[in-house]
């Protein structure tokens, strides 16, 4: 049995790395997996950047199921890790419960707001970044039909979708956007098979640009788009390199900065709400050597103009989460 436990424990893939120093920071990845090439991987890169800069170590754990949230949080807190970064909205209810028990430990939650004196909540204006990639998608689309594949069906993901559709409609008011969500459970973050099937269904309906906000599921979406010779749009991390020539752009969400800054600030960091939009460099669209041939100078000029207008407040992108509804379909 102990052999089996070893194997199953190893199934947790990345065990808590044990190195003892006082007040090491810690990070807990969500169910999409540390190497989802998207959301969690962005957080990982932020932690690694901090490690490289300071030469210090941090602790990490990758969750395998929902039940481990509280266990992992408490274990790190008991072990003296400080600050502890939780990557993902799903930690909110657990953190709400755990944070008061460890008043001297600082916690960070990404994508959700937890009102506790020792918690820093980092949220992003995903609708602004999604607006820009929506514009690029609409300018690239020949059919006037675009797709969106979300991960778990939650308001946060609807915020991506709503911003995207607004961007699409800003360029082409007649465009059609097909929207699908992968599921209603956290498993929807890591189901590339379903992601690919959803994308194929949208492509079959005529979509030639598909944006995903689905973590690991998005690998399947981008792959299906590349297989069919159309364009995918990546999310969170820069995913342009994954299928060069078939990833139009990526909606960058600088989760890496959120993690890096928290680690840098250390135990004495400020708490409270931090909102990162285009202006703060929290979101953006990706333009690099992998997609520079896909985006014409005119497209770039147009989207950069809109980018500046959003920063200046001339264009206000509707935030789905402000009223749980979207003005455009």
């Amino acid at each position, binding site marked *: 049995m102990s052999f089996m436990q070893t194997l199953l424990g190893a199934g947790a893939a990345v065990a808590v790395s044990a190195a003892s120093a006082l007040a090491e920071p810690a990070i807990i990845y969500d169910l999409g997996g540390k190497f989802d090439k998207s959301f969690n991987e962005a957080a990982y890169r932020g932690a690694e950047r901090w490690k490289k800069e300071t030469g210090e170590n941090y602790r990490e754990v990758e969750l395998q199921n929902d039940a481990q949230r509280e266990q992992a949080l408490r274990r790190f807190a008991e072990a003296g890790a400080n600050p502890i970064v939780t990557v993902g909205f799903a930690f909110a209810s657990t953190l709400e419960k755990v944070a008061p028990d460890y008043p001297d430990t600082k916690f960070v939650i990404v994508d959700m707001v937890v009102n506790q004196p020792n918690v820093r909540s980092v949220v992003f204006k995903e609708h602004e970044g999604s607006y820009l990639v929506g514009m690029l998608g609409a300018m690239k689309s020949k059919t006037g039909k675009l797709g969106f594949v979300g991960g778990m*069906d939650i308001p946060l993901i609807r915020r991506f979708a709503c911003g995207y559709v607004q961007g699409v409609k800003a360029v082409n008011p007649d465009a059609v956007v097909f929207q699908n969500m992968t599921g209603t459970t956290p498993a929807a973050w890591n189901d590339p098979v379903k992601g690919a099937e959803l994308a194929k269904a949208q492509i079959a309906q005529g979509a030639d640009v598909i944006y995903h906000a689905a973590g690991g599921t998005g690998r399947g979406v981008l792959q299906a788009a590349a297989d069919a010779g159309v364009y995918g749009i990546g999310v969170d991390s820069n995913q342009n390199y994954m299928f060069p020539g078939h990833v139009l752009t990526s909606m960058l969400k600088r989760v890496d900065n959120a993690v890096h800054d928290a680690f840098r600030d250390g135990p004495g960091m400020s708490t409270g709400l931090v909102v990162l939009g285009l202006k703060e460099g929290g979101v953006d669209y990706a333009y690099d050597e992998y997609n520079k041939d896909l985006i014409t100078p005119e497209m770039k000029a147009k989207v950069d103009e809109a980018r500046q207008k959003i920063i200046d407040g001339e264009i206000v992108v509707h935030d789905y989460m402000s009223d749980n509804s979207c003005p455009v379909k």
Partner: protein
Amino acid sequence: MDLDIVLQLADSSVRLATPLLLACLAGLYSERSGVFDIGLEGKMLIAAFFAAATAAVTGSAWVGLAAGLAASLVFSMLHAVASITFRGNQLISGVAINFLAVGMTALLGHTWFRQGGQTPQLVGDARFHAIELPGAARLADVPVIGPVYAEVISGHSILVYIAFLAVPLTWWVLYRTRFGLRLRAVGENPAAVDTAGISVPLLRYQALVITGILCGIAGAYLSTSMNAGFVREMTAGKGFIALAALIFAKWRPWPALFATLLFGLLEAIGIRFQNVELGGIGTIPVQFMQALPYILTVVILAGFVGKAIPPRAGGEPYVKEE
């Protein structure tokens, strides 16, 4: 609902049904020989991993397939040794195989590729790509038959066609060959087979070799054709759905085809139709559409299958009378 949607659904069903079909036929050989096998899931998983890992390193999907087959065969033989030679409990051995596969793939995957148990993305020849059947483009304009041929039948990977050819082949082996007769007999009444002077363990070992091969193809299909790489626990219960389909099909090859296609169709419907607008009544929520395959599974199993009688000697290790 127009023809396009029907065709897209059928196309998607075929893709989704393929791993189920292969696993279902794998289970059919094993269970017909009197060895219960709930380790189909684990065998598919280990095959998917080794196929993707080998394909990623060598760049050849065929070498990957061979590695997947080998891995699945090793696991199948593990089950055979435990349950045939040592007469262990077949269910326990199957569960052990499933656990072993989950742990091993994650451990090896992370050790080798350092990506949390995934393999690198497979590109180019490291994957089985869709093949166009001859004449698909030319026939596409013929009404009804053309689109059906071009969209549903053509344009899948070679492994899909192997899976569908395995159905008539299985039927032929099972009902038209001496081996098939003995295989069916050994699952019903091993003592009679033994009396006729035929080795019961040998027959069961042969059946499990076939099971291993079919699971190996199913796994390789998942990671090198349907997807571009291995993801942790990517089989996601398909081995168990295949077992349900096997019961639904009453351990027969042709019904197995229809059962797995039905499960594939239900999954395709769940994916394709999310929020369905019903004129006047309102919207069917996405949760219901996603639960639909499972609800229908229960309804079908409870209401339409009738009595499914497993092979009589299933699950019983054979002890030769002294």
